[in-house]
């Protein structure tokens, strides 16, 4: 398989994954904060294709739960009344992409609520919370990585381009940031920021915190590239023609750093999503009732939930396909950068 195609394939995979989260309103059957107080901690409903008489159905159906007599948290499937899934059905109102009002949902059921990943303590649909939570977590990761790369690029380019004492100072600070264990650093920065904030402020706080943690590695990589590029003939020539520093950076040096930045982005984004999850999991991030992948899991800090309601763990697995996608993309990008480098080097040595 050729290299550019590999990059494209991973991009498509990631695009689909992010698309599902972006259209959470459509794929989620319910509103993420809508409560169903009569059904707390409902286990995931199983999709059935074969009914009690052994007949095969093409359209999957679910059996609603009823309490096992004499218990208060044990549920039994009520096989007497199957509810088939309805696809592209009309349900609760939501706003697609945050502004388009819509009612169309990917699936739903008539006369009953279906919970494919179970419900939490307030009877909220875990699947809907998972999808909407992804919007928060992924956006935090993407924005955080974007800011980090911006900071890292500016610092790295300045250090490499101007050199001298500025370079020394900036790189020493970068070494400090690199040396510290990242979670301690995250804790330290988070410790000195306000705690009781509303969800929106908390979100931007998190983005700022995780952006401040990781700038050192991209800065050092960018610095390395800038150091080698600024000595190249075409840069010297442009400088000879009287190009300003800003022009040189923008026109000649920034494009050379793009492959480093892309690879770093693919590495940083999943780490940052995980950082958001970690902070929210520990109660230092986005607060309830707004769902995020981190605070969905924070229920598991209670022992009773851990013992009795194992399906509350399922949201943790959502990161696996995303990690896989970004890892694949990062290694494909790295391979591509290496083949380009080899091509360029062999071209350069031609007589």
């Amino acid at each position, binding site marked *: 398989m050729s290299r550019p195609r590999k990059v494209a394939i991973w991009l498509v995979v990631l695009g689909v994954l992010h698309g599902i989260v972006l259209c959470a309103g459509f794929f989620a059957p319910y509103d993420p904060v809508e409560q169903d107080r009569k059904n707390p901690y409902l286990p995931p409903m199983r999709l059935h294709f074969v009914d009690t008489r052994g007949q095969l159905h093409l359209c999957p159906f679910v059996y609603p739960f009823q309490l096992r007599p004499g218990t208060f948290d044990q549920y039994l499937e009520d096989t007497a009344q199957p509810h088939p899934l309805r696809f592209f059905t009309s349900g609760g109102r939501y706003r697609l992409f945050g502004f388009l009002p819509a009612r169309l949902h990917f699936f739903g059921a008539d006369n009953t609520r279906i919970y494919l990943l179970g419900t939490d303590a307030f009877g909220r649909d875990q699947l809907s919370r998972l999808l909407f939570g992804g919007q928060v977590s992924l956006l935090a990761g993407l924005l955080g990585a974007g800011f980090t790369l911006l900071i890292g690029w500016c610092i790295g380019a300045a250090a490499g381009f101007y050199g001298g004492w500025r370079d020394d100072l900036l790189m*020493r*600070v970068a*070494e*400090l940031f690199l*040396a*510290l*264990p*990242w*979670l*301690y*650093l995250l*804790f*330290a*920065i*988070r*410790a*000195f*920021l*306000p*705690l009781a904030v509303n969800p929106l402020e908390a979100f931007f706080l998190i983005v700022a915190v995780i952006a401040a943690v990781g700038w050192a590695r991209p800065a050092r990589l960018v610095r390395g590239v800038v150091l080698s590029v600024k000595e190249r003939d075409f840069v010297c020539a442009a400088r000879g023609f009287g190009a300003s520093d800003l022009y040189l950076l923008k026109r000649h040096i920034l494009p050379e750093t793009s492959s480093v930045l892309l690879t770093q982005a693919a590495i940083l984004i*999943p780490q940052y999503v*995980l950082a958001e*999850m*970690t902070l929210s*999991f*520990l*109660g*230092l991030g986005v607060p309830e009732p707004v769902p995020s992948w981190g605070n969905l*899991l924070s229920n*598991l*800090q209670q*022992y009773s939930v*851990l*013992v009795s309601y*194992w399906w509350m*763990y399922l949201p*943790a*697995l959502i*990161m*696996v396909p995303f*990690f*896989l996608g970004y*890892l694949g993309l990062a290694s494909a990008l790295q391979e591509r950068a290496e083949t380009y480098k080899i091509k360029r080097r062999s071209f350069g040595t031609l007589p």
Partner: protein
Amino acid sequence: MMRYLLRRLAHAFLLVIGVSLLAFLFTTLAPGNYFDEMRLNPQIAPETLVALRAQYQLDRPLPVRYASWVNSVLHGEMGFSFAYNTPVAPLLLVRAKNTLLLTVTATLLAWAIALPLGVWSAERLGQLPDRLISWSTAALLVVPDLALALGLLVLTVRTGWFPTGGMVSVDFESLSSLNKIRDLALHMALPVTTLVLSALPLLVRHVRAAVADVLDAPFLLAAEGHGIPRRTLLFRYALPAAANPLVSLFGFSIGALLSGSLLIEVVMSWPGLGPFLLEAILARDIYVVIGGVLFSTIFLAAGNFLADMLLYWVDPRIRTASTSG
């Protein structure tokens, strides 16, 4: 030898100073402090708050605070905890011991597993063992450590294979010393397994790459020609030659495991620095947070220093370079 050692020590020392300065710079950005919560309490007079802040020097400028903090570090106190009303160092030490127990065990175990696996994988490059190892490390790599920790916890709680939560059983004090060790080991099993599994894939991959780079070298071919057995060749000749990148990875792995253990301690309620720091953050007990960060830096610097010594011992190239240069 002395010069190399001293240079490394100076490097570690500068790192610790830099981190403490950075941490103090962050405190100036902090809006509010520990006593702000008390403002809402009608039973505490505003004058008392002012007096309290003055007592803990929170109203002084940054350089003064830093100087007095350095002074208290030199006296073995590392500042004062507002919440516990005692010096920070004794509080931290108790927890840090538990964190170290976890981190050191996990680091040693992870390397003890990663080295043979990586060497084996490099020797059978492209063959079945190598592919199996590559696939399993890739599978581990895509599971984030939060998911791994929670997953193992759910599994353990449901199966009851290992005790969960805490460091020792309730009746620990009444056990014989052998049973005490056994009890501790059982409680450590789950967090250490999680830490090792989260660190392993990266280590194995780097060992494999470093050793595979060396295996093509002519000196190994020559050694093979002399009839030196394969295992001696791999571990006595190839591994030391590949040690240089691995030693810097060793320092990195300590950092990663410290971070990992912070999270895993909270998840598995291990009485280490993790839950303690979290509590301190929520209470705005800044000197405890700074102390915790500083402690992790010191440990990391110590680990790096140890790794440098190890490299000096293993790699003759470093020895000659540092004595002649």
